[in-house]
């Protein structure tokens, strides 16, 4: 409705203003539809996702910001809380812990934080979750690093 549109427009202006400050997040609005956004986020340092650039797709509902935006990874990622095939994200703030005070920008930040701190106890990717839960940190990290190289890094040569 009108309120969500106005809010998204304000957020768009905010994003343009903060573009320089936060280089880890690049939020782009669809040219024709303000309810469709994409974001490019950098994998956090000291994680297997370091060096990768991951693309997120936002679908903003009409009731935004009372309803959370639907976010999923477009880039393949090996992470316990991200569905390996669909890119669906299991994150409480995108579901029941959503607050209208959050913005698309802050959702991106929360997703970066989730990448750095996976929650293996509520897995969408069972393989990844099982590796972490069984304590095989090395196995998890090597798998995640491999998929980061395969999917999230620009092809060389």
């Amino acid at each position, binding site marked *: 409705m009108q*309120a969500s549109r*106005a*809010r998204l427009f*304000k*957020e768009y202006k905010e994003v343009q203003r903060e573009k320089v400050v936060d280089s880890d997040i690049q939020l782009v609005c669809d040219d024709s539809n303000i309810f469709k956004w994409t974001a490019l986020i950098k994998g956090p340092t000291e994680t297997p996702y370091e060096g990768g650039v991951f693309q997120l797709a936002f679908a903003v509902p009409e*009731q935004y*910001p*009372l309803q959370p935006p639907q976010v999923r990874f477009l880039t393949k990622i090996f992470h316990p809380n991200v569905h390996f095939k669909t890119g669906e994200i299991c994150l409480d703030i995108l579901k029941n*812990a959503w*607050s*209208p*005070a959050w913005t698309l920008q802050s959702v991106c930040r929360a997703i970066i934080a989730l990448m750095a701190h996976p929650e293996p106890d509520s897995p969408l990717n069972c393989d990844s979750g099982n590796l972490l839960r069984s304590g095989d940190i090395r196995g998890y990290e090597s798998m995640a690093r491999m998929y980061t190289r395969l999917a999230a890094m620009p092809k060389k040569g």
Partner: protein
Amino acid sequence: MVSDSIINGQAAVSSKDFAKKKRANRTAKLKQCKLDARREQWLSQVKNKGSKEESNGAGGSPQSPLPVSDERKSSLDNLDTRSRGEESSLHDSDFDSMANSPTSNVLGGNDLGKDRPGTSSSSSSSSISSGCCSGNVSEEDDDGCLDDWEAVADALTANEKQQHPTTETPAQPEIPIASAVPPESTNETSEAGTLKPESKGTVPRSAPNGRAWRPDDVFRPQSLPNLSKQHSFPTNAERRCGRGTINWACHSFNSQPSSCPICYEDLDVTDSSFLPCSCGFRLCLFCHKRILEADGRCPGCRKQYDVDWEMGVNGAFIYFCTNCELVRRCIFVTRGHHVCEDLSGSY
């Protein structure tokens, strides 16, 4: 309480004025607007004080059943009189000593019998005016932030610098400090008999106030008037907050967003005096209503909004609706829309 009702009414009226101002000039920045208005109020208050002082000199005596602002007046204006009133206040009630000190200051304790009849009428009127003043002040408190206070304080002191020579100089030579004390105290005991009943009835809060500035008085004669004036100003503000006329207003000192964090629209005066949750998260009335219709949780702390939030627990928002002329809870006052609900509403 009489003074309380006055304060409430005044707050509503002034908020109405603000709303009008805002409507008339939407593009004008809200903060600037507030600051200017506040400055004007303070300045006019100071002026009033000046005129009161003059009328005292003419023959009327300021025995107002004084609430807050009169004490403030005495603490700000009549700093020189404190030193005299202070000793007698040890055995009398603070209210009496302060109310009387200006009188004896100007009149030297003469013509007390003549003054009596005039006093009662003037006291009632001045009590109303001072009630209004305190209403204004506490209303200012609730949306002010610290830098505004500083600005106001600057304006006040600047004004008083001009005013002080006129009030101080006649008072000083008439009664030397030491000799003034004994005759005053005798006068006050006689006056206390006539005054005390009404003062007790109207202003039970006057006693704790004296405590707040008494430590000031101890070293009052040594220090310069301006210094201690600046000292006493913030303590007065704090005291007023603490008293509980609008105790929730104190929260707003901490952080006051200029726009609603939900819809990013600017908060108007009604919005910015609206504090629906104890966590201090602010938002506009419009968004609050939408959230109540949805899951009803505060965006700041994710707790459920209190069902009886209008009962005054978490910063009540009951106010006098200028359109329907009833005390109502206002749901939505933006963009000319005005939707009110009865207090016995559906929530």
